[in-house]
């Protein structure tokens, strides 16, 4: 158990130790500056995406049409960054580790299996009929079941649990992937078309009509998590501590996992799976913020994730003309970072 807990530096109100403590105001000021800088980068990249290389004359009607079409790309990026960043940080807190992320544990592969199984067993009409809230609820129920199963293992094992979880998650992801492909092979071409529109998005070609839904879900889930940010701080201290501090640990964890599952399914439905993105965003956030307080980490992770994705998209689209590759490039870089981290620090 001890090796599962990542070193957390709680900001104690009056530490008895002689350690020199930075006044809270200075910490907050430094944090504010960093957040502003990251946000500035994100805004600059977003502006770049909107207006760079626009063939029409500035101010003409064609110009605004192009900007509008690029706005949906920016919106998609913001939603995806929000989903992955917030989901990963919340997941890290409730599972008491900083390595495993919902994506690495096969959440998005599960999402695809659920989607495919819906079409496979109920026909293509099922997707249209159960669009929106009902479907998200059904998927979330399934995914939370899965998450609860994994979570149960996390605390019932003796040793090497994180390794086991990681391995199990990765292999499950592979198995789910095969299962999805298998079922997709059995569909009629028209059914497959409807399904693939739902499963294989990229930032340039994500379905614009689904974006408002995704954004709305993000706002709702974000609000819920933000209001519970102090509870999350306590939950992150581990089960025993949280329980003695009067937090219903089990309930809070399950609720958070449910929200995480919703976020992951929104992002996956927009741009497909991104395994390592959340991990990298969270890792950077912890480095920049330097504390685990969710009041600080949650805004920062959203800003950082957005800045990363927007920058990557801007560079790839306007320098290399390959807007569809953003997720692949992020995957490549993130995978290398993850590997490096794993080799350096092991799984502690």
């Amino acid at each position, binding site marked *: 158990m001890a090796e599962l807990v990542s070193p957390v530096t709680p900001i104690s109100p009056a530490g008895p130790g002689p350690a020199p403590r930075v006044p809270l105001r200075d910490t907050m000021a430094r944090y504010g500056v960093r957040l502003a800088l990251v946000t500035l980068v994100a805004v600059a990249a977003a502006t770049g995406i909107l207006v760079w290389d626009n063939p029409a004359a500035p101010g003409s009607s064609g110009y605004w049409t192009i900007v509008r079409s690029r706005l949906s790309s920016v919106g998609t990026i913001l939603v995806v960054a929000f989903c992955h960043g917030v989901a990963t940080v919340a997941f890290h807190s409730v599972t008491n580790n900083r390595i495993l992320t919902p994506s690495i544990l096969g959440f998005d592969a599960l999402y695809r299996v659920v989607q495919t199984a819906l079409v496979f067993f109920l026909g293509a009409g099922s997707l249209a009929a159960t669009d929106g809230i009902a479907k998200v609820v059904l998927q979330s129920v399934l995914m939370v079941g899965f998450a609860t199963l994994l979570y149960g293992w996390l605390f019932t094992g003796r040793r*090497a649990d994180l390794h086991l979880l990681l391995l199990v998650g990765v292999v499950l992801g592979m198995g789910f992937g095969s299962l999805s492909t298998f079922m997709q092979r059995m569909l009629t071409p028209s059914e497959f078309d409807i399904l693939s529109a739902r499963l294989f998005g990229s930032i340039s070609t994500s379905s614009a009509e689904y974006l408002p839904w995704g954004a709305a879900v993000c706002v709702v889930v974000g609000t819920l998590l933000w209001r519970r940010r102090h509870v999350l701080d306590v939950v992150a201290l581990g089960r025993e501590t949280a329980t003695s501090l009067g937090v219903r640990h089990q309930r809070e964890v399950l609720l958070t996992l449910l929200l995480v599952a919703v976020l992951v399914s929104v992002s996956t439905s927009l741009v497909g799976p991104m395994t390592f993105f959340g991990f990298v965003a969270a890792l950077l956030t912890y480095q920049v913020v330097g504390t685990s307080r969710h009041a600080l980490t949650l805004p920062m992770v959203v800003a950082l994730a957005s800045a990363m994705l927007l920058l990557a998209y801007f560079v790839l689209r306007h320098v290399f003309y390959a807007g569809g590759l953003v997720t692949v490039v992020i995957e*490549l870089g993130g995978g290398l970072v993850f590997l490096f981290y*794993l080799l350096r620090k092991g799984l502690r």
Partner: protein
Amino acid sequence: MTTLTTAPAPTAARTWQRSGGLLAAALLTLALVVTSLFVGVYDLGAQGGDAMFWITRVPRTLALVLAGSAMAVSGLVLQQLTQNRFVEATTAGTSEWAALGLLLSVILLPTVGLATRMVVASAAAFVGTMVFLVVLRRVQVRTTLVVPVVGLMLGAVVSALTTLIAVRTNYLQLLGTWFMGSFTTVVRGQYEVLWVVAAVCVAIFVLADRLTVAGLGRDVATNLGLSYDRVLLVGTAMVAVASGVTTVVVGFLPFLGLVVPNVVSLLRGDDLRSNLPWVCLGGVALVTACDILGRVVRMPFEIPVGMILGVVGAAGFLLLVLRVRRRG
């Protein structure tokens, strides 16, 4: 080199028992292989059925036998070399490297034949497996489960790179069909290169004892007078050739080298030399069974064997992992 395992002198009854079991397993596998010859859409009794039999059915079945046994045995070899039960071509990234090599050979050498492509793919697989082994030496925390995780992550990074290259060169659609792990396209004149793999299997049989000793670790093996590095290189090269050739001809066959050797070990213990024939048979039986399933489940269409193996293998793998964990 004499055998190092000092097994108790087998009594006549036990010898018979062993060979009897192996005979039964061989017969079962043979039954599957024969079934594979007679499963398909084309009616062999019809006009030209005889020709069809020799053009597609026999090559396909032979390819199943060769690829199945090769991948299962090379999984066993990798497990010896890494001293880890959970390593095989897909969890060491070997297959992904072979795919990268194949793609590069298609882009850079568009006119060369199949043989050159296989050499390139095998070379890439060799480099990749070596990278994996070197990375493993650098890992500070070498628990049983960290090794396959590192391999899988390496594989994920390499396959992202492959995807990237494929997208930039418009080969993405081909990528999906190439590595699907399917015997559908195997016909006469297309599969003969797979016989290279048979040579690899024979070589592994010859080297069984050396690999067993190498599996005891560098220090012990060196003390016993084995040139550890040479065995490591030769073993890796054989695995790379098997994976490279199989990847080029049929694509990925996930989890095969993982599930079969482990199940054999569970049933029979860890004597590599006497397990080898069982692992060969098990690999053939599993691939053939999955392939027949893929052919029958949606007649007249086919489901690629790689998908079925992916589902079955993942389930089997998880059962193995959890079983090991229960024992602590």
